[in-house]
């Protein structure tokens, strides 16, 4: 049991450190360090442009998508080297957020199911951030129940014609490509009639409408499909085998470990260390200390759980569903932390502006953004089901629609 770099790892770290120090957009470092959930914009620049520029620079020097094969724009690095890179990249790593879906889910799905030509054509530009990809799975009628989706794809000659609606598509408004899960056979049970494609997001018939979220921002979109044509050559996996393809995508979501989920704890600890209450520093208050300790061990527990996962990965073990705990723990933690930090501010905790809010309104922004964290990418409840069923081996819920043809499943509760 050790945290020491091997000679090779130390050399990798030194090389990464030197390159980052010479090339990173240092003018944004302070702002990036201070950014937190719900507060991720840069004051004087478009963060998307900054992120794309940094990604391209990394790709040109061979530092993008470290674990991908070189021929697809990666570096063929080991899991440990990815962790070392993340440690050294520090706050600049926050600029990778734009590419998480593309690099973490779309890329690996393409790698597993696209043709060799397609991989060589699309993956390097995905790695370099020149193309941004989105993932079109969720629908109004299929959120947690992804396999309940209704967007139809019908074969016409060598093409598929897609009609329907997706929702909660992160970054669709600035994406160039997407992977799309559709229903190709509604007469068979729901998991058995799905097919996966990738498509150009500029295709005729696609309409993208940003969703105004509860916190006022718009990170997600509704995407409407009207007679959108996709060549059969862009099908990923067999017809009606889309569910299995999507499992690959979701499994790869779990491989994007080590990135570290935001817990809000470092922000809270710093805030309490400096906040003067009526009778002294907040961190000297018994009640505050107890809460801080409670969250401290959850934050450190997540950190070391992720290190254990990386160690397992580097031994060649596949990351399992046990990594579902990260978002489950962090989601409600950041929400509770935001509310607690505001409570410490008393009546002024209600103020949310960058100018007049305590700590620049950071915790207020966190409070308003955090409910989304507990829903996106699998709700807390779905995460608990995954742990219960796939880690602990408990039986799945009784599924009344499992063996019913999809078009016979009721669509309204009452």
């Amino acid at each position, binding site marked *: 049991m050790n*945290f020491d770099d091997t000679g090779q790892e130390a050399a990798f770290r030194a090389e990464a450190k030197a390159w980052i120090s010479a090339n990173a957009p240092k003018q944004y470092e302070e702002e990036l360090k201070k950014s937190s959930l719900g507060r991720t914009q840069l004051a004087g620049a478009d963060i998307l442009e900054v992120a794309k520029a940094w990604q391209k620079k990394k790709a040109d020097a061979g530092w993008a998508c470290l674990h991908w094969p070189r021929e697809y724009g990666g570096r063929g690095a080991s899991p440990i080297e990815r962790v070392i890179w993340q440690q050294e990249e520090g706050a600049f790593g926050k600029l990778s957020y734009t590419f998480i879906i593309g690099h973490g889910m779309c890329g690996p799905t393409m790698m597993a199911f696209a043709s060799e030509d397609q991989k060589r054509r699309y993956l390097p530009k995905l790695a370099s951030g020149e193309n941004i990809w989105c993932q079109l799975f969720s629908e109004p009628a299929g959120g947690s129940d992804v396999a309940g989706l209704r967007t139809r794809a019908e074969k016409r000659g060598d093409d598929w014609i897609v009609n329907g609606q997706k929702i909660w598509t992160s970054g669709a408004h600035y994406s160039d490509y997407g992977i799309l899960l559709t229903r190709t056979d509604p007469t068979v049970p729901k998991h058995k009639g799905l097919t996966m494609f990738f498509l150009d997001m500029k295709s005729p018939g696609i309409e993208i409408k940003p969703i105004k979220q509860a916190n006022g921002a718009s990170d997600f979109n509704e995407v409407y499909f009207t007679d959108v044509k996709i060549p059969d050559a862009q099908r990923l996996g067999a017809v009606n085998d889309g569910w299995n393809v999507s499992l690959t995508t979701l499994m790869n979501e779990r491989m994007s470990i080590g990135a570290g989920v935001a817990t809000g704890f470092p922000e809270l600890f710093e805030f309490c*260390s400096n906040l003067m209450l009526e009778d002294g520093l907040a961190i000297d208050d018994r009640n505050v200390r107890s809460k801080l300790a409670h969250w401290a061990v959850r934050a*450190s527990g997540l*950190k070391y*759980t992720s290190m*254990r996962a990386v*160690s397992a990965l580097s031994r060649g073990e596949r990351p399992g569903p046990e990594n579902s705990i990260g978002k489950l723990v962090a989601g409600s933690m950041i929400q509770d932390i935001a509310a607690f930090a505001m409570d410490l501010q008393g009546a002024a905790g209600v103020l949310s502006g960058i100018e007049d809010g305590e700590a620049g309104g950071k915790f207020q922004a966190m409070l308003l953004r955090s409910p989304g964290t507990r829903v996106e990418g699998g709700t807390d409840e779905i995460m608990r089901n995954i742990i219960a069923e796939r880690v602990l*081996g*408990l039986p799945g819920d009784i599924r009344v629609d499992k063996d019913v043809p999809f078009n016979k499943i009721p669509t309204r509760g009452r």
Partner: protein
Amino acid sequence: MNFDFSDEQKQLRDEARKFLAEKCPPSAVRAVLDGKTPYDRDLWKGLAEMGFIGVAIPESYGGTGAGHLELCVIAEEIGRALAPVPFSSTVYLAAEAILLAGSEAQKRKWLPLIASGEAIGTLALFEGRGNPSPQAIKLTAANGVLNGVKKPVPDGAIADFAIVAARTGSSGRDSDIALFIVDMKAEGVEAKLLNNVDPSRGQAEVTFKNCKAEPLGAANEGWSIISQVLDRAAVLLAFEQVGGSDRALEMGRDYALDRIAFGRPIGSFQAIKHMLADMYVSATLARSNCYYGAWALSTNSAELPEAAAAARISATQAFQHCAKNNIQVHGGMGFTWEFDCHLYYRRANATALALGSLSYWEDALIDRMRKRNAA
């Protein structure tokens, strides 16, 4: 980086688990719980023969000299099996204190006796209500004799020797506290078994009346030694707690798979599944914090105080959570004497207080994090 136990250490864990499954079934725990015997003598002897008691004691003092990572592995299995033996008091407290502060002669005398299972040791620290603090120590040491009362003393009624924390001055400084080794059969020592929530491990009141005692470590360093011993014991006990958490979770899971209600296994109900998933989350976070503690302990890292507090808090929470909800999953049967759920519930809640309360360790963690941040 390799943040895991080695293959050899995992093999040791398998051996220990197999040994304990055979020699320490729930009936063995119950024999002590029911007061039929003060501790499981055969198991204790067996643990010594397997080399488990002396796993972190150097070979030159009669141990196997494997190290503290190996001791963490054994501790987890001891906790998992609820072993009704004075392992934590003897190994994590007494042996660690002697390893840290004992003279060469003291190490030569006591460590081989500990490793061979011939001597049970303990730390006599607490004097009634309260958490570890130099101010709470009233028992006096003057002219080589001790006077005062310690309680609760873990395994105090079966111990052969005790490390006793005593007051030698009243300056109000930590240096007022010194440590002594006392032979529990010496004149002036009286131990009385007390009722406690987990009778599978005894707690005693020990009275010292003009009792002769031998100093352990420098006279003014008693409190510093205790602090170090508590940090080391916190990591080791946390491994016991993690072992207990895992077992309680498994019991709940197994029952949820077997028990049918409303025509289906109760483990198919989300209310039950989510409760078990949350237990898994607690146990996993605790295990990860414990690994950090194990690393810090085995490397004698400057991060040990912080790592120990994190492991202690996380493991205390996890064991209490898993033991409590294991009963809930079992429903009415979980509240019977016959089912083993209460054994884990008792152990979880007794262990939670063994080295001072949760709030004491929370306080310690925040102090230590601040110190690191300031540095």
